[in-house]
């Protein structure tokens, strides 16, 4: 009986319309495409290597951090320490990622491992300490910032220049290597994981934790995984920033925490958990950074940048509310 009551609405959907929730991915991609077209139109160089590589590079760090944030958000959490983990990995990278190729490789692995460890500590505080994610990560974030300052009290350090050039210039002379790096890392980590029960349970516990639990999924393990992933991707961001600047700075993290949340929401994920896509989130990060590049070439006042970002964010959240307005069963939305 219950099933037949829900199904008429489904059946009445016109055959050509998008599947439910598809707009969450489509919207950021379409807006990004429009902004990208605007940028190409107003950039003095148009579509050229000289305009594309800076465009690709500038959002990679934020995209990594936002993807990390997304995994926590999808489990209905929030990681306020993610900027601090980025800063810590950036500071560590400026100490470790130089020297012989072996030293560099060890350095990169060490930085990523520290990122994962930070994430695991967050996860443990949330899962075993039963502390709210916001509170737990607020505290651990302060600790990581402190560690970053101990590692690198003043900006500076040394990062391997050859590797930096390789990652921040172009492949085949025209395609920004940083984009390849971003998609390769995200694909290699998330694709295999998304085929496993553990990977899928990230969405499940964000969507309805008790249902997921009763279906035999392990919410604790999923939540722990989400935080480790967040730490890992924050460390990727910290590493890339080190390659971009050839130095480390313990104070870079602050703006990334809030911007990553903004990118996640703009990218179509819901802060209520359970929905969103990695691709949408990457698009969200690029969308935010593309706005700032457009502002450079249009000469809009710098003070208006946060205003525009805020408007985009508000629009993204408002679009999310459409679901609520159009839903026949409000309880479904409110849960």
């Amino acid at each position, binding site marked *: 009986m219950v099933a037949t009551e829900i199904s008429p609405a489904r059946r009445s959907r016109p055959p050509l319309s998008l599947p439910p929730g598809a707009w969450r991915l489509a919207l950021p991609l379409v807006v990004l495409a429009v902004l990208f077209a605007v940028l190409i139109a107003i950039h003095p160089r148009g579509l050229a*290597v000289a305009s594309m590589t800076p465009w690709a590079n500038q959002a990679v760090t934020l995209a990594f951090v936002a993807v990390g944030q997304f995994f926590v958000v999808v489990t209905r959490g929030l990681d306020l320490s993610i900027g601090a983990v980025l800063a810590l990995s950036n500071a560590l990278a400026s100490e470790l990622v130089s020297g012989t190729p072996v030293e560099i490789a060890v350095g990169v692995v060490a930085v990523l491992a520290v990122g994962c460890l930070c994430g695991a500590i967050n996860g443990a505080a949330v899962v075993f300490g039963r502390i709210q994610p916001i509170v737990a990560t607020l505290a651990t974030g302060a600790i990581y910032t402190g560690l970053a300052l101990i590692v690198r009290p003043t900006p500076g350090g040394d990062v391997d220049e050859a590797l930096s050039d390789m990652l921040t210039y172009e492949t085949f002379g025209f395609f920004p290597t940083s984009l390849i790096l971003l998609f390769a890392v995200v694909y290699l980590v998330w694709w295999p994981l998304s085929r496993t029960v553990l990977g899928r349970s990230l969405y499940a516990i964000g969507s309805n934790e008790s249902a997921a639990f009763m279906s035999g999924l392990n919410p604790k393990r999923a939540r722990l995984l989400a935080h480790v992933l967040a730490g890992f991707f924050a460390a990727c961001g910290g590493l890339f920033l080190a390659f971009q600047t050839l130095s480390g700075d313990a104070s870079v993290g602050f703006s990334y925490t809030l911007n990553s949340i903004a990118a996640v929401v703009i990218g179509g994920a819901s802060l209520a958990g359970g929905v969103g896509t990695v691709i949408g989130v990457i698009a969200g990060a690029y969308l935010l950074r593309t706005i700032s590049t457009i502002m450079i070439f249009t000469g809009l006042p710098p003070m208006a940048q946060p205003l525009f970002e805020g408007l985009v964010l508000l629009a993204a959240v408002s679009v999310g509310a459409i679901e609520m307005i159009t839903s026949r069963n409000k309880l479904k939305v409110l849960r």
Partner: protein
Amino acid sequence: MNPLCPAKVGLLATAALLLSLVPVTAADTYQPACFVPAPNAKTIQTEAKPGPCRIALVNGFVGNDWRINMIQAAKAWAAIPENKAELKEFKIISVGNDVAAQISALDNLIGAGYDGIVLNAVNATSFGPIVKRAKRAGVALVAFDNVLDTDEIVQVNEDQFQLGEIKAKDVVERLAGKANPKVLEVRGLPGNSVDRDNHDGMRSVLDKVPGIQVTEVVGNWDTGTVQKVVADVLATQGQFDAVVCQHGCAGVVRALIDAKMPMIPIAGDAENGTRIIMAQQGVKGLSAAQAPAMSAVTLQALIAQLKGEPMPSLVSLAIPAIKTEELKDGVNYWTSLPNTFYAATSFPACGIDFTADQIMSQTPDNT
């Protein structure tokens, strides 16, 4: 191709070859009276580009009076007809405190084929790759105010040690051999390198005076804080013979007025408010500061470099300082303008002498 600065068309391919460092002695640099070579500065000379050229100013943070006056001064410079003739395009960008955003802005401008860029950097260490890329693309990059850890490009600044030194010298002169003088030193933000250099400069002069007694207070470069700490020290230690002060020195004068003490020699900053109150109270002393108008000198240095002139890798500007006897309303301070306006608007050795109207008629916006 870039129709705006035709010489660049053929040059881009061989950009790296164009940037050759020519070893010449410091005395050989262009206009050494204005672009004073710092000790140990290298000489940088690049091939001349026929003007008019496209240049840009990339700033970080924009939310304080110094930065706003700095951008206004840059625009005022570009509005002067003879400078205007050198410029095909002048773009101004403020990006905020994010390193990644500033790097991206610079990359975009280098990519867009600008001939020269002046930079007030977010930090001193993160721009190594940008210096390299600018060089590769044949773009002249000139940094100022927050200078970078490099001697590969031309940079413009005031020597903060020297700033402390000239303030202390003025005060010592005015004390004229007074036996065992009691001097108050008002410091800036603790832990900052500018505070350290100012302090070291002041002490290098003061400590040589026989029998001198120096008392230090920390004023955080803030007029209100300065007034409070000076009031406290006057209450506990009584009269001083002179004051050397980094910034926010209107607070020193106000504290003296409140304590009903006679005016003593004060060497302080060059904010309009400080000069107004110094003039009103007939304070004897000196007014000197890191002047935001250095953005204009930096643009002048950039144009010189683009013309192929030999430039020092670090310019140590003559510090704009005036004795309080020379203060004149409407000339070097303005009772009609806000206290926070930076009244040091001229670098005479560089031919830069803005009126307040010239600066205040410009907006701090991006262009």
